[in-house]
């Protein structure tokens, strides 16, 4: 369980978000929505410890993680950033294997078991055929899948993603979001920043609306995330349309022309 309490964060001495609080339980998919530059990435980086919070706490299993070292953090939280590459020509399997880093002491190398876990992660994401390919030469979408496999190999309870579907084609987006549902069944908490309100309708158990230094938490966005809120959030005219496909109902968000 992850709990954010009264977090105030920003870059340098510039405050970007004030007094953010929310809780993520196992099985939650928390979608962070907000316009460009509103502070979605800042919030994510502060939770990860990449930025120091100005005030407030991040708690995991009711323990303040302020003084946790990187290894301990990585055992609990994995991170898939917005963009990534590598300067050197590592193979896909090497990159996925690096997901095991937090389980290895400074002077140890991955064992056969670590290699097996990495292999299983690649298999799960159906990228095993890429394992001997050079990571940095793959397409953006393939690299994204490799990073997700790396996060899986990390076997953490919390996965934080910054716009995970950005580089993915339509089918891979659906595949990737399908995995989210699988992971939360296994008890993982997912926190993801997204530009697509439908993600919150389709998958979100919670939504965080980020704007003007404030974060508003909305439980069960499928029911509770209303047109008015989204219009205010993005400052555009839009309509939410309910669609009913026999057993499945959902909502889509379209602009008003």
């Amino acid at each position, binding site marked *: 369980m992850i709990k954010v309490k009264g977090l105030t964060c920003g870059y340098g001495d510039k405050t970007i978000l004030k007094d953010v609080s929310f809780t993520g339980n196992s099985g939650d998919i928390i979608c962070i929505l907000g316009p460009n530059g509103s502070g979605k990435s800042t919030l994510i980086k502060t939770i*990860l410890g*990449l930025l120091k919070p100005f005030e407030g706490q991040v708690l995991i299993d009711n323990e303040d993680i302020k003084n946790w070292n990187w290894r301990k953090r990585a055992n609990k*939280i994995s991170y898939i950033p917005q963009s990534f590459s590598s300067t050197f020509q590592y193979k896909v399997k090497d990159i996925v294997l690096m997901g095991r*880093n937090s389980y290895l002491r400074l*002077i140890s190398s991955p064992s056969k078991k670590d290699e097996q876990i990495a292999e299983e992660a690649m298999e799960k994401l159906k990228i095993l055929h890429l394992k001997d390919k050079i990571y940095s030469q793959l397409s953006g979408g393939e690299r994204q899948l490799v990073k997700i496999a*790396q996060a899986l190999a990390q076997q953490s309870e919390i996965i934080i993603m910054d716009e995970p579907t950005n580089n993915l084609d339509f089918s891979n987006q659906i595949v990737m979001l399908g995995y989210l549902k699988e992971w939360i069944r296994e008890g993982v908490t997912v926190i993801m920043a997204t530009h697509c309100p439908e993600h919150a309708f389709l998958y979100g158990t919670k939504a965080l609306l980020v704007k003007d230094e404030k974060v508003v938490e909305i439980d069960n966005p499928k029911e509770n995330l209303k047109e008015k809120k989204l219009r205010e959030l993005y400052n555009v005219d839009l309509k939410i349309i309910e669609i009913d496909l026999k057993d499945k109902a959902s909502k889509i968000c379209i602009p008003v022309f």
Partner: protein
Amino acid sequence: MKNIVNIRRFLWGLLIFVFLLSFAIGRYPIDMETLIKVLLSKVFTIDKTWSDTVETIVFRVRLPRILAAMLVGGSLSLSGAVYQGMFKNPLVSPDILGVSAGAAFGAALAIFLSFNTVGIQISAFLFGILGVALVYLISIKVKEDPLISLVIIGILVGSIFTSLTSIIKYIADTEDKLPTITFWLMGSLSGILPKDVKRVFVPILVGIVPLYLLRWKLNVLSLDEDEAKTLGLDTGRTRIIVIICSTLMTAASVSISGVIGWIGLVIPHLGRILVGPDYRILVPITILLGSTYLLIIDNIARAFTTVEIPLGILTSLIGAPFFIFLLLNKGRSWNR
């Protein structure tokens, strides 16, 4: 994988071949049979069929020089390889943090003050470490990206030391001291004594062993800073270890060899072309390649001309075209 095993075997074979060959090269000819007997006589009892001169040349003159070439070549190459990963930049060389500039100043100062050889070596070693320590201590005060501040301050501190070295050269006695300083700055292994090798052996080993042990983590360190941290690597601490080890090796090397460029840049690149970027394999391969390479270069330096060519000149004269050749034929071993 099988390919890598073969490459490793080949490189070991090459090193042993060049190692033995190096004893035979020089103005005093020694044939292979005598050489192998002389070498083995240290381990087994063999009837002495050779003169004392041969023994002195093998053990007092050529062996230290061969070992020095291997130690220096291996150290500079490994240093370059780990720095390139740490800075995520394939064009970085071991002197990026001012170790050579500091050592050069230390040596020039010691020569100016008429220190003996040991004094020159110790002064070079200490000033090399001082240079890097200054760079590191200033860089942690800068509230910027730690890697960029390291590089910039490395360049700044390096140029201060280079200016100081120039001042010493400018005021040094042109008959006697200036040529010595100039020769030292161009790098050479001539006149290496067994005790010089013994002296640098410990700092070099203290540098190599930790880097070898944490070599898998160097892969993670070569990723983006945020990625490495969220994968659970304490990048700050790992960086300090890498800098300390690398500085010890390089400062010790430079203290006996003078400034030898290009090895630390070219050899890791060649290593990556041969076995890929995984430091688990790249670290031993780079050490092997670097040792063999400098040994070959040093043989060229002492065999081909009556007046020895300084090593620094040879390594750049051979290293730079070799790098161009690699770029044209094998392409890059990096992406950006």
